[in-house]
């Protein structure tokens, strides 16, 4: 298809984020923003402030992740006894119960996925800032994986919602959502926004600069 690898940036062209129409980058002053002629979306050569925004959001998410794990996710009261469950104690409950499959699913969604997401995003950010040209294709794939997998962390939030609905103040007891639920929801939402604001084309810009 293309013998010489040329990017839109090198040709002074810009690809619309929403509709992918390729147009010439209009010359605008600092305060003006160009808009796509087809769909009206703001045109940016690269996602604006991608590195700074992603860093800020990843750090915010890591800070929220601490109370999300430390505080209780659900507060169960049955027949006079009150017990608080954190994310990890929920996983351990399933292990003791013999439900290994479910324990694994919850562990992956609530513990592994957020940690993987923090680590991958930080690695990608550092690799760009240190001008790494090592395996750009694999790093792009890593980014795609991070973007796709992050939403599954919502699992625990939904479990809390369903439990709370099913076990309403009855003879059986009641379940209330604990403070960790909000922090954990914030972690999921913030990391999703962080991944969406990261621009994988920055990985390739570094590679192109080295080749020029």
């Amino acid at each position, binding site marked *: *298809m*293309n013998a*010489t690898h*040329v*990017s*839109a940036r090198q*040709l002074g062209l810009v*690809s619309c*984020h*929403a*509709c*992918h*129409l*390729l147009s010439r980058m209009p010359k605008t002053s600092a305060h003006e923003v160009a808009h796509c002629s*087809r*769909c*009206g*979306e703001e045109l940016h050569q690269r996602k604006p402030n991608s590195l700074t925004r992603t860093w800020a959001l990843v750090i915010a998410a890591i800070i929220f992740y601490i109370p999300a794990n430390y505080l209780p996710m659900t507060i169960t009261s049955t027949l006079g006894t009150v017990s608080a469950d954190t994310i990890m104690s929920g996983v351990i409950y*399933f292990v003791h*119960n013999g439900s290994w499959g*479910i324990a694994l*699913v*919850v562990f992956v969604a609530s513990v592994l996925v957020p940690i993987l997401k923090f680590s991958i995003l930080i690695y990608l950010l550092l690799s760009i800032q240190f001008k790494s040209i090592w395996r750009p*294709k694999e790093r*792009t*794939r890593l*980014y*795609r994986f991070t*973007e796709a997998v992050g*939403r*599954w962390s*919502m*699992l625990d*939030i*939904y*479990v*809390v*919602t*369903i*439990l*709370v*609905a*099913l*076990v*309403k103040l*009855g*003879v*059986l007891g009641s379940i*209330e*959502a604990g403070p960790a*639920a*909000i922090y954990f*929801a914030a972690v999921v*939402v913030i990391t999703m926004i962080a991944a*969406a604001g990261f621009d*994988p*084309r920055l*990985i*390739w810009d570094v590679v192109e600069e080295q080749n*020029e």
Partner: protein
Amino acid sequence: MALLAHLARELHISELFMSGATHQIACHECDLIHNIPVMPARAAACCVRCGSVLLQTKVNSIDRTLAWTIAGLVLYAVAVSFPFLAMKNGPIGNETGLLSGIQQLTNQGIIPLAVLVLLTCLLIPLIQMLSLLYIFIPMKLNIRVKFAIPVFRLFKHVKPWSMMEIYMLGILVSIVKLGEMATIVPGLAVIAFSLLIFVLNFALSSVDTHMVWERLERKS
């Protein structure tokens, strides 16, 4: 290398504005320019440098999208109006709907969480289906409507926030968790909801994004 890049620059820009047969797309993950030939139906073009999908063509995009979307709306109506899960323990029972959990969270004062669940499991899937109808019905009838372009842009933006399949997995986890306490009986709405996950996915994968943008552009 500099000369090559320069030559390529001339070539690409002239091609971009002169030839009608091919068009150019920049890979949205690595920014590499590709000349896209006229593609056969049901084909995908991938980036030669990073492997991401550049565009996909579909067969009968308009009819299939409309059919799946209408089926989806019917299932959606069933899913929100019929009982979702019931918990039984001897004579004591508690029946819940899709909205009960959200209501309960609101009662407990955790409103941001209630809003998040409401958006990701109910409102955004509905927005997706309604915007598909709003774009594809006029397209089918060959008429033009206002705001089709912003609606389609909205449709693209909300997509990652539609999370019904994760909610379904949440139901599974909850059933196991409460299994010792009581029996959980799935209601009609659960069946509708799980079918809706597939139907909405079929609707989304029938959308030929490139075709939609081209048609919306021609009209405006």
